[in-house]
């Protein structure tokens, strides 16, 4: 496939299909979870329990409690380097913002290309470190499955392809840009079907425990 053809596909049907699968998949998975029975908790809540307190857990769990930091903080920091760099690259790069504006009509000022490239580089290096950790840690080796490795690949690919397109590396620019867009579309299409869905589910999961523990007056 030539560069122009691939880019046309990525800008056209590729993007449309990816977005359609993304929306359908997210709705399917959320409906599949939340239509299951959820018995009401009839225990009298502790005095002072509040839903606001429960919702706070959604934010507070973003950083580990001091009691656990010695054992988990280092890898959590690496994980945030990945997540933070990724967010900056996706939401700060002007062409990405233009694409988002074309899709949903909102936009914001972009960041300089060098900043984006740096953020993407940090994110990619952090992702490689996380993969090495998964391959070397006995705990992670034991609990990992296909989803962990495939989702890693799907999340990783837009980073080097994006950097190569940005720096005009890897031959034909149009082809590389098309390939980069395609990796992004694969990411969007895969999101509802693997662990990357945690970008949405984390709030529900934290909130579920937050509500249960808040009723008990138990700190989380």
């Amino acid at each position, binding site marked *: 496939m030539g560069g122009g053809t691939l880019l046309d596909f990525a800008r056209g049907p590729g993007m449309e299909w990816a977005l359609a699968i993304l929306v359908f998949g997210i709705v399917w998975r959320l409906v599949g979870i939340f239509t299951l029975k959820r018995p009401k908790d009839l225990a009298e809540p502790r005095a002072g329990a509040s839903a606001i307190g429960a919702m706070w857990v959604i934010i507070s769990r973003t950083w*580990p409690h001091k009691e656990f930091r010695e054992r988990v903080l280092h890898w959590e920091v690496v994980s945030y380097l990945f997540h933070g760099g990724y967010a900056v690259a996706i939401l700060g790069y002007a062409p990405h913002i233009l694409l988002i504006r074309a899709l949903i009509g909102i936009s914001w000022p972009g960041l300089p290309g060098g900043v984006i490239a740096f953020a993407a580089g940090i994110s990619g290096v952090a992702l490689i470190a996380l993969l090495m950790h998964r391959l070397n840690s006995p705990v992670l080796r034991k609990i990992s499955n296909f989803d*962990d490795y495939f989702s890693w690949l799907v999340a990783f690919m837009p980073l080097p392809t994006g950097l190569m397109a940005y720096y005009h590396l890897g031959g034909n620019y149009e082809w590389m840009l098309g390939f980069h867009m395609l990796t992004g579309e694969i990411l969007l299409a895969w999101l509802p079907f693997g662990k990357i869905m945690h970008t949405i589910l984390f709030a529900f999961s934290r909130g579920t425990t937050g509500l249960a523990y808040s009723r008990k007056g*138990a700190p989380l």
Partner: protein
Amino acid sequence: MTTSDTAVLPGDPHVGVPDKQGTASDAERLDRAMHSFLRDFGANNAVYLESCVHCGQCAEACQYYVQTGDPKYTPIWKIEPFKQAYKREMGPLSPIYRLLGLKKRVTAAELAEWQELIYDSCTMCGRCTLVCPMGIDIASLVGSVRHGMEAAGLVPHDLKVTMDRAKTEGSPLGATPKVLKERLAWMADEHQVEIPLDLDKADILVTISSIEIMKYPQSIAALAKVMRHVKASWTFRSDGYEATNFGMLGGDRVGQRQATMKLIEAAIKVGAKVVILPECGHAYQALRWQGANVYGKPLPFKVLNISEYLAEKIAEGKLHLKTDTRSVTFHDPCQVARRGGAIAAPREVLHALGVDLREMKDTGAFNWCCGGGGGVVTIKRADPLRYRVFQIKMRQVDDTGAELLVSTCSNCRQTFDDGQAHFHWDKAAHSLLELVADNLAERS
């Protein structure tokens, strides 16, 4: 699980030898477990099972992993068959998994293999819940897996015997109504204190743990002295006194309901406004937080752990205490504190006693389990592993340099007693209630 993944501890005879109850075939056992699992695949469990990112952080909060370094003790791995069954049979992506053969059926052999992970090496202490970046309450998932294991007849024999005894005799340790009456009479006589039993009406129904009746009967006298001091209208009931709930611990829904309903019916019969739960961690979980859900409607009375009652009476100015100047460290029972929310009450009582409270490094909700919860203390074959994790607790207590170790759980207390004997440790766990009873001031 490969051989290399199995850390065989010195003197540990049990690994790879699951207990089985009954003569059902493997297919029948699997069928029963799957039916139970399906019943527990509600929205809460589903959102947990869908959200795990396999980060492995839960291992770092688990005493079994921390002490052994064996990855099989990673909390989320302990519920793997449940997760696998959910993803294959019930999850939103299950049609895809089945169509493409991406998730294998759980087998009876896997369930049997997981017995050690779901019972021997998990006290359902919930410490992993506090570290999980997704906030997954793994302990509640373990509870659901235990339902399936019990249905399949795959409970460790020692625990199962205790559960069955609770069901047939009303007490896991043989503390029948006759034994209760004898013990109450003995304590009333020895301590010269009135202990009301089977009154028709009372404001407060007091319950007790079999462990206290059989091993620490002095706690009965301590309770009676406190109730006399605050001039409470109270009674024990021989038709509803046993606060432990081994059905809940082992995964037996019927046994759990039976034990819970006895207390609820007795409380309603005497018109109790308050039910006081004894120094027993899981009793608090069973009645305070699960009781209404078992009953099917809100409970028509208030449920308090004894530490909450003591703190309440101190705040009301009805409980007057002498000062005890000793240094004390407090062990929070997991089901009362971390998973129950009653963290401030015992500290308010200790403050009123005037002790020099020396908190452990990880305390309150972050406290390390004694290793005896979740029915683990009943499983003899798990003793070597239990002693290993108990060493965390010993270090925690020793580091405070406190003269006295106090707790509000008789199950923790017997775990401490056992650990003390095993390690020839110079510390013993004491009861907060007994400490209060020993320091009651004369009423002016």
